[in-house]
């Protein structure tokens, strides 16, 4: 495995309340493990606040997790010294949802893309320029993009710039955090196709965070489903969405609209909204909204256990 994340945990402390603020703990990650191999995309799905972005950021050590282990190509990311960490980060890049907010509006595209090459001491001057032009071409942008500013581009083109920036250092792994969520359908398909090509050609591994199950089904071979800081189901993407085992995965799947009026309109099989990660319910976090919940679910958190080859589920009642 290229990336192996084991038992990652992270609790944020927030000041909350008025007029006398108190400190509250938010358990953003509660023992999360996943792995991803070369040429493979791992989907991370779940609703707002489930910890999917935190998981990606903690694995990159953009935030320091409280506990757990992250192995990248056999090296321990969490104990790496600054110099080693910088070398590792060169091989792990990130693509954000809103490429505009990740760019300096006053820096020309070419200069922005040459910067990481200089920072990592890979290339400077003409060599760097040639390399950036080649990457612009690879992501489907014209050479003239080099001397232009980010605002001169459409949303889809800006995301191509974001991808070009991530590719500049020839990484092995890309964390993509909702990379196509802000795009129109027709442009979204263009970007997905580009990512498909890159995955094949460069044998890139992806950790692909998204709330859109359709996009994940298209792009990711395997998927993990998160709920309130825990992984509740994992396995091959097609199997998970065709035959979900965890009651929450079922709800998520049925609530996702499908462009076919013959598919009976999903009865809203769920009441309420995800509880706050500030005070998650005891036992299985999902039990207050779960149709299958029994006494054991209210007291004991179910372990993520194997139920079929490659498939795991954290539910006392799944079979």
């Amino acid at each position, binding site marked *: 495995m290229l990336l192996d994340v084991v038992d990652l945990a992270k609790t944020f402390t927030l000041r909350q309340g008025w007029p006398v603020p108190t400190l509250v703990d938010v358990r953003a990650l509660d023992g999360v493990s996943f792995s991803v191999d070369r040429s493979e995309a791992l989907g991370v799905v779940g609703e707002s606040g489930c910890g999917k972005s935190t998981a990606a950021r903690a694995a990159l050590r953009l935030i320091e997790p409280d506990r757990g282990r992250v192995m990248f190509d056999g090296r321990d990311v969490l104990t790496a010294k600054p110099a080693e960490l910088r070398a590792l980060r060169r091989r792990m890049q990130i693509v954000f949802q809103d490429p505009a907010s990740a760019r300096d509006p006053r820096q020309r595209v070419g200069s922005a893309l040459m910067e990481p090459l200089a920072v990592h001491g890979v290339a400077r001057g003409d060599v760097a320029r040639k390399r950036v032009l080649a990457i612009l071409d690879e992501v489907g942008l014209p050479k003239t993009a080099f001397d232009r500013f980010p605002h001169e581009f459409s949303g889809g083109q800006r995301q191509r710039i974001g991808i070009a920036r991530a590719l500049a250092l020839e990484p092995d792994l890309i964390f993509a955090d909702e990379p196509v969520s802000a795009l129109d359908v027709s442009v979204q398909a263009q970007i997905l196709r580009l990512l498909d090509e890159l995955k094949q050609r460069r044998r890139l591994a992806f950790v692909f965070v998204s709330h859109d199950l359709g996009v994940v*089904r298209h792009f990711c071979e395997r998927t993990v489903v998160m709920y309130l800081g825990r992984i509740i189901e994992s396995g091959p993407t097609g199997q998970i969405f065709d035959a979900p085992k965890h009651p929450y995965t079922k709800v998520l*799947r049925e609530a996702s609209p499908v*462009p*076919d009026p013959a598919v009976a309109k999903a009865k809203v099989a*769920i009441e309420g909204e995800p509880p706050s990660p500030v005070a998650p319910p005891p036992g299985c976090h999902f039990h207050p909204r779960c149709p299958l919940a029994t006494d054991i679910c209210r007291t004991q958190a179910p372990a993520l256990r194997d139920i079929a080859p490659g498939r795991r589920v954290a539910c006392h009642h799944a079979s």
Partner: protein
Amino acid sequence: MSAVSKASDAAAALRVEGLTTSLKIDGVWRDAVRDVSFALAPGETLALVGESGCGKSLTAMTVMGLLPKGVGRLSAGRIVIDGVETSTLAERDFGKVRGDSIGMIFQEPMTSLNPVLPVGFQIAEPLMQHRGLSRRQAMERARELMELVRIPAAAERLKSYPHQFSGGMRQRVMIALAIACSPKVLIADEPTTALDVTVQAQVLDLLGVLQRERGLGVLLITHNLGVVATNAQRVMVMYGGDVVESADVGDFFAKPLHPYSRALLAAMPRVDRPTSDLAPIPGQVPTLAELPDGCRFQSRCPLREEACAVRPPLTPVEGGRRHVRCVVLARELAGDLPREGTA
């Protein structure tokens, strides 16, 4: 015009004829919505679907009389809301119709709610203004409305402020506010786009209940074809300010006709089946200034031919059950046409 005439003039909750909206861009007035016509019956959901900049929200803003002065204007067409022609009304009189006969909800409820007023008061306010209720009566009605939109513990939450609600609950508050005066029409502009899917399903379910039980006509504006399929009876697809196709939802999803409608569906990844062959639409939506004359979609269309340089009419096909704006298709499907139907 059968797709637009299911409701006769009197029965329609909302009727729009030849609506053309222009925007002033760099000092030049350009038509951003061209000649849009439809009728919305009570208890019906009509979806207006398309990508950014296609004119779907602009159509809604025009109907609501909310075009910014000096930047946008209604250049042609009639708008009749619950029997009252609003396109000729002065702003003062329009204010009465707005909120009274037509309500609107937006993608981000936080921008439409006043952050420093309790939500109960915000729901009660239009009832005092439009219905002449006393403050106490209006607050009582606000509580009923919050129960109607299924906000738990409504009585206690009347005094809560918008920031104390989750996104889904805020959208419910917006819905309660929009239907406070029992309008005939609700315009929902991307009402669930900012919500998680399970919350989206709950809010759409609520809209469906209101539409059926209260006979509300809903104009649902969305970019999500999945939302259209399960929540609307009819659909109009817009591209570059033109309606390019209109049909019943069943017909549309069974066989989308317009090249743009087909491309849109082929580009959409689906959760219910493997989609290894996503087909992106080449190029991107042209800006208003770049839009070609004639057929707006021609620059990206696989069926393009010389005749596309002239703007095609919205042509009835399949015996007038549906309409499509495409010369090539109109010719291919001409066999289906009753002769008089081409007008």
